[in-house]
């Protein structure tokens, strides 16, 4: 008893961490271990299935469609958000309107998804406001049910998250040494050269923080996609998250377990890489 007490006293700092960590273990880590185990078994009869569940996922047509779409959305969406917000941050950083523009840009963060979706539906419907305003569209494009669906999703993603990322970039820009830039300007470096050789290299550490948070936000944007287009949307915006949610409803737990493991291993690798760069 005494020894346990002594040990606790020595490690008392960890008491700050333990309650939260045990919750994380119960609700995140342990269930994962269980799902990883399950992914090698058949849930019907409990028999060992080897890699059969994984094979079933990888040969599944819906999986291939969703994986491709998700990858495309990430590959376009994350750099696009980072570029747009960096551009705005560069414009904003020395302007007096900055303090007025920032809250306006951030405001969409406060708008619940359901409210945003209501407005979006009225805007992009085949008979919606957007088609009414655009002079050329006599036929009326059904944006969410055509090849434009991904563009609509990207726009709403940008709308919601640009302000968030602008603030992150601004904090990075503020940490740069202003004198270096001024000296370069005096020596005759033009705007583009200063951007290319001083500002962007100075921000290199921030790319990973902004990138990480952009990935986080792009996963969160699934909520709006699902609410505006349902469980079976136009095939260009059918993402892995739709697939998992639909398998959950159909109780396809074997497939879900395998896909969950695949995705979390992939994200583990990616986020570890991002984290290493972010904390350096």
């Amino acid at each position, binding site marked *: 008893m005494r020894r346990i007490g002594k040990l606790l006293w020595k490690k008392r700092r960890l008491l700050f961490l333990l*309650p939260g960590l045990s919750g994380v273990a119960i609700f995140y880590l342990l269930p994962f271990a269980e799902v990883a185990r399950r992914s090698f078994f058949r849930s019907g009869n409990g028999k060992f299935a080897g890699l059969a569940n994984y094979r079933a996922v990888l040969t599944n047509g819906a999986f291939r469609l969703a994986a491709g779409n998700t990858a495309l959305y990430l590959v376009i969406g994350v750099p696009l958000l980072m570029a747009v917000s960096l551009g705005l941050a560069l414009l904003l950083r020395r302007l007096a309107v900055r303090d007025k523009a920032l809250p306006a840009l951030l405001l969409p963060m406060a708008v619940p998804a359901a409210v945003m979706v209501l407005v979006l539906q009225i805007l992009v419907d085949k008979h919606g406001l957007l088609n009414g305003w655009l002079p050329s569209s006599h036929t009326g494009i059904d944006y969410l049910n055509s090849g434009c669906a991904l563009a609509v999703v990207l726009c709403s993603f940008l709308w919601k998250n640009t302000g968030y990322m602008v603030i992150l970039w601004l904090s990075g820009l503020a940490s740069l040494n202003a004198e270096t830039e001024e000296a370069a300007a005096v020596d005759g470096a033009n705007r583009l050269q200063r951007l290319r050789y001083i500002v962007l290299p100075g921000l290199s550490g921030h790319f990973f923080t902004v990138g990480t948070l952009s990935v986080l936000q792009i996963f969160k944007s699934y909520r709006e996609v699902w609410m505006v287009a349902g469980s079976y949307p136009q095939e260009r915006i059918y993402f892995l998250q739709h697939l998992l949610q639909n398998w959950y409803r159909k109780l396809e737990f074997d497939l879900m377990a395998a896909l969950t493991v695949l995705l979390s291993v992939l994200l583990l690798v990616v986020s570890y890489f991002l984290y290493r760069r972010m904390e350096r």
Partner: protein
Amino acid sequence: MRETNNRRKRKRRAGSLLAATVCILAAALVCLPLLMIPGGAFMSDMELRRLLAPILAGQEGYAGWRLLPFYPTLDCFYNVLVASPDFYRLFWNSVGMTAAILAGQLLFGLPSAWAFAAFRFRGREALFALYVMLMLLPFQVMLLPQYLMLRSLHLYGNPGAVILPAVFSTFPVFVMYRGFTQIDGEILEAARLEGAGEWQIFRRIGLPLGETGIRAALVLSFLECWNLVEQPMAFLEEQRDWPLSLYLPQLGLARAGDAFAVSVIVLIPAVCIFALGQDALEAGIAYMGVKE
């Protein structure tokens, strides 16, 4: 010489005017869609139906909109607030869930964030990397693991099924941690040398100096909890346990008037919290981008 200086100055002024215009346009573009909401909430059902007829009935032509209603009425608010008892239950469900989650995050997440920021222990880096990875996982990847766990804890179908996983979400820990890392380590060392206990240091130094990060985490969590959709849909079977954020999509455009009225009511707390916590939010987000 003076001339070129003047020219450069004029050029610079024109440049910043252009930049300001672009920024103001961007801000306006962002806010414009939101202006539709109050108008819709004060319209009568008939007016909305007429404006949205092309969408609702699939008629020829395009829907229209007015920023200000032709006949302003409180009909839709009456429908929602007086005529449908559902609304209050769902509203209080939302309030209860949000309050419970925020309280839990303060109780569990806050000390964890402090431990990561103030102590150096073995495995700290690896553990923190794990927290960052967990925060990136989309909910759907957690769906099956959490479902199985909630089933075995007999929490499935119970508000706890939504609250408890959210309490231990690692994102607020990350935000608060980044706030705490703004504190100069030498202050902590000095306090330790003076013989202050760890609890004392946390309370007297950590909490006051890390307050901005904590408030930013709370604002972000509030906005997230006020907006829960997938979690309650997956883990709560009974509609009477649902939060308001699941009720609104059910109304849809078929009951557009009521939906806009609910939107206004849902937006009010969110915008108030946003306005109150906006400084902390901006600073807290900025900390996330700052190196230690």
